[in-house]
C-alpha cells in the first residue's frame, strides 16, 4: 500500500523530515503526568478490575510477556449469545477449575498408600460439578489408581506405598485441571447492555484453547494479552492488538491522542517481526550507534563492547549528533546542500558595486 506522491491530497500532508517519532513519544509522554491526578474516579458498575492507566501503558510498551491481569473477552455464536442458559453451558466448558479451587484439604495416608481429598461442597456446587466427575478426572490424571467417592471426599488408592510417589501424586492432584480450558482462567458471564447479548470474560489468556471450544465466536473473541495474539495470529495482528490496547487504555483515562501516534509506537515495536519493548532490552538497546546506547543506559557496557569488538558508530542518529555538536539529521536538519565541496571553491563573491 504505497502511496504515489502525486496521488495524495497534499493539503494536510506531513512534510519531509517531520520527526513523527518524537511527536508520538511526546503525545503519549506528556499526558502521562495528567493520568496521575485522576485517582479520584470511582469504578462504575461495568468496568472490569484490570490494570489500567499508566501501569498498563508501561506494561504494554515494555513488551511484557504476560500482562499482570490477562483478560479474554469470549464472544459466543449468535444463537448461543442470546440465551443465558446456553451461555452458561459454554462457560462450564471454558471456566478453568483446578483441584485446588474445589478441594478443602488433601490428606496423605502413607502407611495405607491412600490419599483422601476433602472437597468443598459449596465450591463444587457453584462450579456445577459432582464428586463422581472429580474422581474420574483424578483417575485420568494419575493413571493407575482407583478413586472412590465417599462421605465428605474422595479416596484414592495409590496401589503403592512409595512415599515419593504418593507425595508427587498429591501435588499433581492439587494442580490437576478438573474442568474448563487450561490457562483460560476464571470465567464469568457478562451482559452487553446495548445488545442484550451474553458474553464471557475470563481472567486468562489462552485464546487458542478457548477458541477451540464449541459455541465460541472465533472472530470476535479477543484478549488483552498481546503475546497470545502474536503466537496465534502473527505479527500484524499483534501490532493491531498493541495499538488498540494503548488506545483503549488512554481512552479509559479520557486522554485524547490521535491513533497514528499509538500505532506508530506499535509499529516501532513490531517492525522487526517480533515484539520488542522500548527500553534498554528492546529498541533503545539495539540502536546502531554506540553513543546513542551509551548516552541512554548502561554507558560502560556499550563503550567497552564497542572497543573490544572494534565497532563503528555511523553517526546517523539524533543523540550521537547532539553529543558531538552536529546538526541532527531529522526535521529541518535532514536537508542537505547538493553541491560538491570542490565546486564550492569556484564560487567567487560578486562585487556588490557592480549591481
Amino acid at each position, binding site marked *: 500500500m504505497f502511496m504515489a506522491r502525486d496521488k495524495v491530497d497534499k493539503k494536510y500532508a506531513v512534510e519531509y523530515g517531520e520527526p513523527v517519532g518524537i511527536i508520538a513519544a511526546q503525545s*503519549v509522554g506528556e499526558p502521562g503526568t495528567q493520568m496521575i491526578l485522576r485517582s479520584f474516579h470511582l469504578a462504575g458498575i461495568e468496568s472490569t478490575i484490570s490494570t489500567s492507566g499508566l501501569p498498563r501503558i508501561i506494561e504494554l510498551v515494555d513488551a511484557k*510477556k504476560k500482562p499482570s491481569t490477562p483478560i479474554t473477552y469470549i464472544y459466543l455464536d449468535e444463537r448461543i449469545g442470546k440465551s443465558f442458559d446456553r451461555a452458561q453451558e459454554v462457560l462450564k466448558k471454558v471456566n478453568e477449575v483446578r483441584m485446588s479451587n474445589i478441594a478443602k484439604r488433601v490428606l496423605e495416608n502413607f502407611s495405607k498408600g491412600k490419599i483422601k481429598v476433602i472437597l468443598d461442597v459449596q465450591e463444587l456446587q457453584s462450579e456445577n460439578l459432582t464428586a463422581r466427575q472429580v474422581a474420574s478426572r483424578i483417575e485420568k490424571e494419575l493413571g493407575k489408581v482407583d478413586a472412590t467417592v465417599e462421605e465428605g471426599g474422595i479416596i484414592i488408592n495409590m496401589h503403592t506405598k512409595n512415599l515419593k510417589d504418593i507425595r508427587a501424586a498429591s501435588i499433581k492432584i492439587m494442580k490437576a485441571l478438573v474442568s474448563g480450558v487450561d490457562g483460560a482462567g476464571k470465567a464469568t458471564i457478562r451482559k452487553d447492555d446495548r445488545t442484550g447479548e451474553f458474553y464471557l470474560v475470563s481472567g486468562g489468556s489462552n485464546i487458542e484453547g478457548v477458541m477451540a471450544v464449541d459455541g465460541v465466536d472465533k472472530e470476535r473473541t479477543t484478549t488483552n494479552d498481546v503475546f497470545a495474539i502474536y503466537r496465534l495470529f502473527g505479527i500484524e495482528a499483534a501490532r493491531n492488538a498493541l495499538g488498540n490496547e494503548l488506545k483503549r487504555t488512554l481512552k479509559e483515562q479520557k486522554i485524547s491522542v*490521535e491513533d497514528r501516534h499509538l500505532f506508530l509506537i506499535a509499529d516501532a515495536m513490531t517492525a522487526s517481526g517480533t515484539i520488542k519493548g522500548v527500553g534498554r532490552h528492546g529498541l533503545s538497546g539495539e540502536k546502531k550507534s554506540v553513543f546513542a546506547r551509551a548516552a541512554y543506559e548502561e554507558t560502560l557496557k556499550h563503550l567497552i563492547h564497542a572497543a573490544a569488538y572494534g565497532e563503528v558508530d555511523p553517526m546517523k542518529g539524533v543523540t550521537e549528533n547532539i553529543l*558531538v555538536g*552536529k546538526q541532527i539529521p531529522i526535521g529541518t536538519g535532514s536537508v542537505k546542500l547538493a553541491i560538491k565541496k570542490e565546486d564550492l571553491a569556484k564560487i567567487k563573491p560578486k562585487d556588490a558595486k557592480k549591481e
Partner: protein
Amino acid sequence: MIIMQTEVIDHIKFGILRSDDAKRLSVVKLTVPDTYNEDGYPIDGGLLDQRMGVIDPGLICKTCGARAKSCPGHFGRIELVRPVIHSEFSKIIYMILQSTCRVCHRLMLSDEHIAEYRSVLPKLEESVEGDLEPQGAESEKGFSGSAAMLKRLKNMKKCERCKASKGKFKFSAPTYFYVDDYKLKPDEIRDLLSKISNEDLAVLGIDGAVSRPEWVILSVLLVPPVNVRPSITLESGERSEDDLTHKLVDIMRINLRLDQNLNAGAPQIIIDDLWELLQYHVTTYFNNETASIPPARHRSGRALKTLAQRLKGKEGRFRYNLSGKRVNYSARTVISVDPNIDLDEVGVPIDIASKLTVPFYVTLWNLEKAKELLARTEYPMVINVISKDGKRKRVIDTNREELLKGLQVGDILERQLMDGDITLFNRQPSLHRVSIMSHKAKVLVGKTFRMNYCVTAPYNADFDGDEMNLHVPQSLESQSEARNLMSPQFQIFSPRDGDVIISNNEDGITGMYLLTKDDSYLTKEQAVYLLSIAGIYELPKASKGDLYKGRDVFSMLLPKDLDFDGVSGKAPFVIRKGRLVEGVVTKDTYGRGNNRLMVKIGKDFGYEELKRFIFTTAKVADAFVTLMGVTVGVREYTTSKRLEEERVKILEDTFRKINKLIDDYRNRKLEPLIGYTLRQSLERMIIAELNIVRDKAGETLLKYETEENAAVEMTRSGSRGSTLNIEQMTMFLGQQATLSGGRIKRGYYTNRVLPHIVPGDIAPGARGFVATCYYSGLAPKDLFMHAVGSRSSEVYKALLTARSGYLYRRLSNALQDFYVTDDYSVRDTNNNMIETVYGGDIINPVYTQFEKMDKES
C-alpha cells in the same frame, strides 16, 4: 562571508589503545608517585608534571608553551613493571580464551562448522519464547559471533582442529582466570591472546585491526592531562587533589615498590602480592564500582569517583555534559501577565535586553548602518565586535573610535537585544514541543518576563512565581526557523490530537460569556471603549434605542464572512457573515469537542487571523470584565436555606436506598450482578449510588443558583471551576477514594476505618462518604476520611510522576530517530522502514481536525 560546514564527522570507529601507541601519545614518563614538592611546585616526573599541561593561570605549559586557558593538555604515562588486566574487558577475555585452543591457538571449531554458522544467518524461529534475534554485535563484515556458536564453543571439550583437550577454564571476577586450577598470570594470558589470528577473531565478531584482545593487558598506563583532574586550592591554602590523581598516586606507589622488590630479588610470594595489589589499583582506577571488590576510598571514607563514575548515569559526562549542554545567550527570570502583549511576543526586562546580544552581520549593503550602530553609546548599542579572523573585542568607551575606523565587511557586531528580535521561550519540564516557542522580544521596564496569559497553557505555566528561560538564536538559519516554525500562532493546534492548545481562557472567557449573553446591552461609550481596545474604529448598528447589543460588539471581532454553526450548552450557536446571530460564547464553543470555532477560523482565515482573534477577544473580554466587575466571594459559596434543605433531602434519599440494599444483602434478597459475588455486587451498587448522588447534587446546585452567583456563572462559561468544586463547598464532599479506587476500608483490625465506627459497618458514612461541606465545616470523623483521601492521592501522585517521567524518557529515546521520508514512509535514520505510510493516511496530526471538518462539510 560564507559560513559553511565542509568537514563533517562521518563515522567514529572504536578500538583499544595499544601500549606502543600509549607510549607515542604521551609526552612524559612519570616516575615519582607524588604531586608537589615542599615549595608547592609540581615535581618533574610527578603526577602534575608541567609537561602534561598547567592549571594555574600564570604558568606556561612546558610542552606547547600555551597558558592554562589555551593549552589542550597532554597525556603522560606510567610504565607498569608487570602487566595487569583491564578488568572491564575480563568477560571478553574469558569468552575468547574459552573459544580458542591453548595448543594450536585457533578457534576450536573446524572450518566446516564455521562456514555453517556463517551461511546460516540466524533465522527467525517459530516460538516466541526462544531467542528470535540474531545475537551478538554486528561486525563490519556483517557476520556476528552468534549466540548459538558461542554457546557451542563454551561447551566444547576438545579442539576440533588439533584434538587437544581444552582443559577446565574458570573465571572469577574481576580479573582471575584459572585453567585446570592453575591461575593464569596476565602475561601468560597476553601470550595466549596474541597468538590468535585476526581471521579467527573476525569469526567472533572482533575487528583485529583496531582491537586485538591482547591489548587489554596493560603494560603502559596512559595518564590523563592535568586539566582533566585539576587540583583545587582550599581557602585554608591547602591543596586538594582530584580523585583520579589520588588513584594514580596509589598505582605509582605500588608500581615503584614492585619494581624495587623485583630488583632486590624478593621471594615470589611477595612479588605476587604486590602484583595483585597493582591489579587492584588499576581496576579501581578504571571503575571503582567493579563487582566483588571493595571500592577504593578517600581518607574521609567516601568512595573515590574514578573514570567509569565520571561517564555513568544522570550526572555523568554523557547525560549531563554531552546530551545536555549549557548555553550562552540565555536568561531566566520570573514570569508575569500582560494582556496587552501579543501571543507571539515576550516582554523582556531592559536589564536582560542589554546583556543579551544578537549578531549583526556587516555587509557592503549595511556598512553605514553598522557604523551608526557601533557609534551609539546607549541602549541599543554594540557590546562586542567580532572581526573577520574570529577575534572578539569588547566595545568600551575608549576603543569605540578605533573599532569604528577598523570596521569592515565580514565583521560581526554583537548588539543588544531589541524589539522584534526573535527569541526562544521555554518552561521546564519541557514535556512536549510547545514547551519551547519563539516570541518576538518587546523590551520593557521591570524585572520580569511578561507574556500573554493565552499562551500559558502550552507551557503549563502560571504566575505564582514560575520562572522561565529565554534564548536568543544566533545564526540566521536558526532565527528563520524560530520565526517560521516555532511561533505560537503555528502551534495553536496540538499534534497530539489536532485540538486547540493555545486558546482564550480564564477572564477572557468570562468576559466573552457576559458580553454575548441575551440581555447584554452596552451604551455607546462602552461599545466605543471596548472596540477601540481591539483597534476597531467603527460601530455596529445600534439595536435598542441607542444601546448596542453585546453580541454585535463581539461580532466586530470576528473575521468578516465567517459562517459557523455550533452549540453553546444545549442552545445553538450561529454565526452568519461574521455576525453572531444566536448563542452565548463559552469555553466549549471556542474550541473543544465538536465545537470547532477556532478550527474553522484557522482553516478558512489562517493562523495570523486566528492569533489576532484570540488576542483581541481576550483583551476585549478583560476590559469588559473590568467594566462590569466580576467578584467571587464567600457569598458565592454560602449555603442557602433552600439548598441546605435540598442537600438533606438528597442525602436522606440516597442513604435510604443504600440501607435497603444493605438490608437486602443481609437477608440474602439482593439480586447479584452477573459475574460478581453477592458482596461484590453490593459494593458496586453502593458505589454506583454514591456516584449518582454527586451528579444529582450538581444538577440541584445549577437549578437553585441564580445568575447572580458569579462562581456558578464561571462554571457555566467554562472559564474556571466545576460544579464539583462548588458542590464540595456548599453541599457535601462526597466519597473519598483510595489508591485502589474503591471505598476506604482499612484501618482497624476490627474491620472499621475509625474508632468511631461500629465494626463491620458498611454504610456510606463508615466507609469514607463525607456528607458535610467545606463551608459549614467537616465533621470530625469526616475530616479524618478526607485526610485519608488526600494523603492517598498525594502518595499516588509522587509515585506516578517518577514513573511517567521514565516512560517518557524511554519512549522518546526509542522513537527519536523516526522521520517521514519523501515517499511518506516512516524510517529511522539508518533507513529501516517503520511504517509504509505515515498514520495510514499521511495526514499531519496537527491538521486532523481540519481534515475532519472538511469531510463533514
